[in-house]
């Protein structure tokens, strides 16, 4: 069974540029999560989807971050414009709806110069 797929794995951009990350969850998993992980810290939830609906986006900085999950499968997280402090690893995870075990992708390491 394929795991959670994320791309790109690495991205280097200059500040004020836009950037987008893509996630393909495990087949059949209705719930999708985007996390941010800073160095030496645990993952922090940005947004959670159940099917196409964003059911928890309270921690998403909406002035510059946006996300979508069209058709309830793949998801894209966007930052526009990026700031130096956005440098981190962005993790995507998925789970069966109403269960708690989450399966994580490898993450996208973003460096903002």
């Amino acid at each position, binding site marked *: 069974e394929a795991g959670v797929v994320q791309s790109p794995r690495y991205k280097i951009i200059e500040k004020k540029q836009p950037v987008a990350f893509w996630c393909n969850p495990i087949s059949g998993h209705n719930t999708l999560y985007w996390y941010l992980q800073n160095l*030496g810290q645990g993952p922090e939830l940005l947004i959670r989807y159940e099917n196409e609906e964003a059911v928890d986006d309270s921690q998403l900085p909406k002035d510059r971050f946006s996300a979508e999950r069209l058709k309830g499968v793949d998801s894209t997280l966007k930052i526009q414009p990026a700031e130096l402090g956005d440098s981190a690893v962005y993790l995507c*995870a998925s789970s069966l709806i109403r269960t708690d075990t989450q399966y994580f992708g490898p*993450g996208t390491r973003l460096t903002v110069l």
Partner: protein
Amino acid sequence: SQKIEQNSEALNIQEGKTATLTCNYTNYSPAYLQWYRQDPGRGPVFLLLIRENEKEKRKERLKVTFDTTLKQSLFHITASQPADSATYLCALVWGSGAGSYQLTFGKGTKLSVIP
């Protein structure tokens, strides 16, 4: 305020010994507690789950305990091996309504098993 603390940022032990990692929390009422392993450049991988009404859970060389009175979980790796070297994250699982769950992670403890 809510807080999750893992006892140390780094732990070094000798191969063959038992590694014990601690996770303490305040101002949470978790339904479960999970432990994850994270290797460099990879996402966390689920290891074990323990529910609030369970005292202990085992899986091969891994053992987790959960004391809701002390608000603490201990994670043990017996007969540790260099391949066990990784960062271990504890995560509190709490209900967020309508049957959905959220995870809140600790910062993790980086375990190094020395041959």
